[in-house]
């Protein structure tokens, strides 16, 4: 396989070729690379950034779920399958980020109030060029998903936030390599117990990587970035087939197929829109979910408020479950799957429940509750 496919999954597109020099930074952060490296400082930054990475991965899940669950049963099969498989991979990313954090002695915090974004929101660590909502499946929401998953490579820029998820992970990657070098590998504890492994993670795409050493951490990051990112504008090999039956598309391209209602064909260029066979996308077969619903929109104790509260209680139970699973009790994740299903059914009930104005429906608000 060529350099355009990932080592850990040769069927998966990769858009930042391995032999490409890592030039993606970033005036503000370049300081860290030139100053004499202080292992304590790098470790502190890594602990913080990996916690942010878990938050970041999680923050994409509620918007994707709102789009997914707003689609009426039995319609939009292509979009449903696509979004569902992407959400599952985001959950995988979240757990892998926690695995890396655990591997260097951190403690993932997944059930705290500030872990949950208040939608509409910018993504944690990512700049404010786009805002993410809790909203129904629509061309506009899929357009935002495209921005979430956009390319990793950007020109140098100022400011502390990153331009893309890929760029953020590259900074984490560099810090991991540096810290591993400075500590002679001591930074990786190699403990088995806190690692969530594929044993606890079933019924999903992607590969869950347990992290015991630097190579595992880098593989996990490559998997996370490789699944999501869109095009690298420097790809200029016109003969390279990036699409086709045997290739697993990055999230960006899968969302782009929904957006255009058309699949890629093997000869399409990554720079162009898909031009293959049409897929059926019915933007109208969707529950008319209220944009960014909040419990506070409703009188406390009213029936729909109660339903949203029940949803959020289930959501909190799930976050508590994942928190415990990522803090030394990985086997708990199996019971979390039941909560995930329960959350889905409650979300769909909300989508069918009228909300205020004529024609609008309630929806899951993904809020912190006690």
């Amino acid at each position: 396989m060529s350099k355009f496919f990932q080592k850990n999954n040769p069927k998966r597109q990769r858009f930042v070729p391995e032999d490409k020099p890592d030039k993606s930074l970033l005036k503000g952060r370049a300081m860290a690379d030139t100053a004499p490296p202080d292992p304590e400082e790098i470790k502190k930054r890594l602990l913080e950034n990996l916690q942010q990475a878990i938050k970041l991965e999680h923050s994409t899940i509620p918007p994707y779920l709102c789009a997914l669950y707003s689609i009426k049963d039995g319609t939009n099969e292509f979009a449903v399958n696509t979004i569902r498989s992407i959400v599952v991979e985001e959950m995988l990313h979240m757990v892998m980020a926690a695995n890396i954090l655990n591997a260097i002695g951190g403690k993932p915090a997944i059930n705290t109030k500030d872990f949950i974004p208040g939608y509409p929101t910018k993504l944690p660590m990512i700049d404010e060029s786009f805002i993410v909502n809790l909203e129904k499946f629509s061309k506009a929401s899929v357009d935002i998903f495209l921005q979430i998953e956009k390319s990793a490579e950007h020109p140098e820029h100022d400011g502390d936030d990153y331009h893309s998820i890929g760029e953020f992970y590259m900074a984490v990657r560099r810090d991991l390599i540096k810290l591993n070098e400075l500590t002679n590998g001591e930074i990786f504890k190699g403990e088995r117990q806190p690692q969530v492994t594929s044993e606890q993670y079933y019924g999903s795409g992607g590969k869950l990587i347990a992290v015991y050493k630097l190579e595992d951490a880098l593989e996990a990051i490559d998997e996370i970035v490789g699944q999501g990112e869109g095009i690298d504008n420097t790809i200029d090999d016109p003969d390279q087939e990036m699409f086709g039956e045997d290739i697993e598309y990055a999230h960006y391209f899968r969302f782009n197929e929904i957006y255009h209602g058309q699949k890629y064909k093997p000869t399409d260029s990554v720079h162009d829109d898909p031009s293959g066979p049409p897929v059926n996308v019915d933007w109208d077969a969707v529950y008319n979910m209220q944009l960014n619903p909040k419990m506070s929109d409703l009188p406390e104790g009213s029936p729909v408020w109660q339903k949203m509260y029940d949803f959020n209680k289930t959501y909190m139970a799930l976050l508590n479950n994942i928190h415990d699973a990522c803090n030394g009790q990985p086997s708990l994740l199996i019971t979390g799957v039941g909560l995930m299903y329960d959350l889905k059914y409650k979300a769909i009930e909300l989508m069918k429940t009228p909300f205020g104005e004529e024609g609008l429906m309630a929806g899951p608000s993904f809020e912190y509750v006690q």
Partner: protein
Amino acid sequence: MNTNNHATFLTISAYLTGFSETDLLGTGMVDPYYAAIRDNNDPEVLGYFYQEAATILADSHGDEAEINEAIAARLIPDSCYNGIAKTIILLWYTGNYGNDVLSTDSYKEALVWNVAGAHPPGAKQPGYGSWALPPFSV
């Protein structure tokens, strides 16, 4: 659609099943069940049923005990309105009209699963090993 009858159907369904109107709306089954009752009953008898139900709801001014008592006396007996009230209860709880499953949705959304803390086999899967745990409740 007769909007008055439709509204009465939802409200009386809540009293007949013990679930809130919001819960019933959340199943997405109000419209199909309303249509099933409409299509399978003599329009005249059904008209009287809705009239009686609306009268019970209006006369009691929201006094729940009074409503329940009136429903038991005036809607539930087999001699009343061809047993429509019982049919409505069975429809909501089982998703069946008589002995037939109304639709795939009615099977999935039958209230009996919820009450039993169970799930419709083959649909709404609950996750591996969930059978070893007590049903989740918030």
